[in-house]
């Protein structure tokens, strides 16, 4: 590196660039970089940052989809949605979705990945077959499942009939609608999570298995003492991501049950949609969005906390 001092010692003329005004030099250094950032900046400003702030403003205002006064109502919107009996119902359903989602679907990708990673034949086929539902557009998935769930003459009741079990109401009873929807979301998403676990399993160093073997650990104990501790971090991340995803569940209940029967599948996102686009009540919709926003941000902070700790731990 030739510094100014060296240049003088060596008798090199200081280039004229250094006589340029500092502001001009600053502009030369940064203009291109800022210009390249401009498209992203503008789009984020208009369609992400501004809406996020605007959402908070709207939640304290009286607005309807067709105009409205826009006057400040303080916590009025929040009081209104707390008074709505559907508020607790929707939160309860959303939590149930998360709970059943974990119950039905959390272990499946781990077990599938573990099995596929060990088998010696058809690995590529299994990976493909189990991942396939992930690429199917959700609208196709819900229509297909709606077709299979048809109480009279649908595939599932037809198959149950073959083994002597009577018709099940599936989506049409408040006792089974939510669980039936969880089956659909699990079916649609498990394959993606499985791929992540497969990648995690393949990154486990062979030495760990060998060391466990030398200590006399059989296959089951190796799963418990080597595999599970090695993929624990990924499992925790997948847990949080799955909860964040189920808190936003919309398409399945919207298209298959419209939140029914008797509001048994009305979720928070569905309630926000109905407030805004059926009642045209933007105040209530925004207030509920703000609450959902805060819950999701809290969950995401947990997610980032976990990933950061894992990175720090060198995993």
């Amino acid at each position, binding site marked *: 590196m030739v510094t100014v001092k060296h240049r003088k010692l060596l008798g090199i003329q200081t280039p004229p660039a250094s006589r340029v005004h500092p502001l001009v030099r600053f502009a030369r250094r940064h203009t291109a970089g800022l210009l390249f950032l401009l498209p992203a900046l503008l789009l984020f400003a208009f369609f992400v940052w501004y809406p996020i702030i605007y959402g908070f403003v709207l939640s304290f205002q009286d607005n309807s989809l067709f105009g409205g006064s826009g006057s400040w109502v303080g916590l009025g919107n929040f009081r209104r949605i707390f008074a709505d009996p559907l508020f607790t119902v929707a939160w309860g359903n959303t939590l149930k979705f998360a709970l059943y989602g974990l119950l039905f679907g959390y272990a499946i990708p781990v077990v599938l990945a573990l099995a596929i990673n060990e088998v010696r034949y058809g690995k590529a086929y299994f990976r493909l077959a189990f991942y*396939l539902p992930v690429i199917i557009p959700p609208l196709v998935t819900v229509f297909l499942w709606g077709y299979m769930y048809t109480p009279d*003459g*649908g595939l599932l009741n037809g198959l149950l009939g073959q083994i002597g079990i009577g018709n099940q109401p599936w989506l049409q009873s408040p006792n089974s609608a939510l669980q039936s929807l969880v089956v659909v979301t699990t079916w649609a998403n498990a394959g993606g999570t499985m791929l*992540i676990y497969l990648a995690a*399993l393949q990154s486990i160093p062979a030495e760990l298995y060998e060391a466990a073997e030398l200590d006399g650990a059989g296959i089951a104990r190796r799963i418990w003492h080597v*595999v599970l501790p090695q993929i624990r971090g990924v499992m925790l991340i997948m847990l949080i991501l799955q909860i964040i995803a189920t808190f936003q569940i919309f398409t399945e209940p919207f298209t298959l049950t419209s939140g029914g029967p008797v509001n048994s599948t009305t979720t928070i996102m569905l309630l*926000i949609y109905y407030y805004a686009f059926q009642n045209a009540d933007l105040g209530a919709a925004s207030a509920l*969005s703000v609450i959902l926003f805060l819950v999701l941000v809290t969950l*995401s902070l947990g997610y980032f906390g976990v990933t950061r700790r894992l990175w720090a731990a060198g995993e």
Partner: protein
Amino acid sequence: MRRIIRVRRGRSQVTDAESTERSLISPLEWYKPSVRIAHWAIIALLVLLTLTTLGPLFWMLSGALKSSVEIYRTPPQLWPAAPEWSNFSKAWTELNSLLYLGNTAALAVGAVVLQLLVSATAAYSLSKLKPVLGNALLFFFLSTLMVPALAYLIPQYLTVVHLPIFGISLTDSWWAVWLPEAANAFNIIVLKSFFDSIPNDLVEAARIDGANALQIFIRIILPLSRPALAVVAMFTIFATWKDFLWPLLVLTDPSKEPVSVALYQLGIAASNGVPQNVLLAGFIFALLPPLILFLVFQRQIIRGVNTTGIRG
């Protein structure tokens, strides 16, 4: 040790490149009869389980070929006695499939172009040009990852209906889908981390040769980043094909709707008498493009899932 495994694997005809490392079960254990039996039992079980993912797709095809009488017959018929292939031509014309598939394709192409353009320029700037405030802006981009888009759906919708400063409405224009989608922090990170792996010496050498920032971007960064750009493009196409709620809200003009919204309006929301078997054929049309794309590019896509963590 590893060579022994390779030899054994070679004999058992496992060609998958990823399986050259040993995994949970040791090479020695593969000689145990109990392990071998369990192995075949697990394979049989997995084959049965793939029926739960492939079965419904097969059922969809068989339903699309059944007559209106056969479709709800019990016990369920695996395959119709006389497949009605005409259901597909009916779906093509009655559901206006060409228009709606074309709309989705146009939305996907526009989304790919715009997202690549916006994300790559931003990632290039943050990775190589590093302008003033770059790190602060990176933080602001990244922090939006913590907020799922549905949490600000309503204000975002209102923004599109009445764009501030410009005072125009984007609804019923494809820009209403393209522009908000292009503000994607995840793409920026994926591309930035890829650009970070391109040696700075390369960029410096080009600069000394007199290339300006734009030339370096087009001639060096972009050609070297084809794999990363391909992954982003692929996931953008799948995301657009899956998109439902946002286009449902902002594209109310029926001639602009993507296929997902059109099938919802024609098939699920309205019970205006399109028969179930024809609808199933229409849904198969909507499924085919992403399915074919996936089957063609499955290796790249699966590798993309592994390197980026996007689950598709």
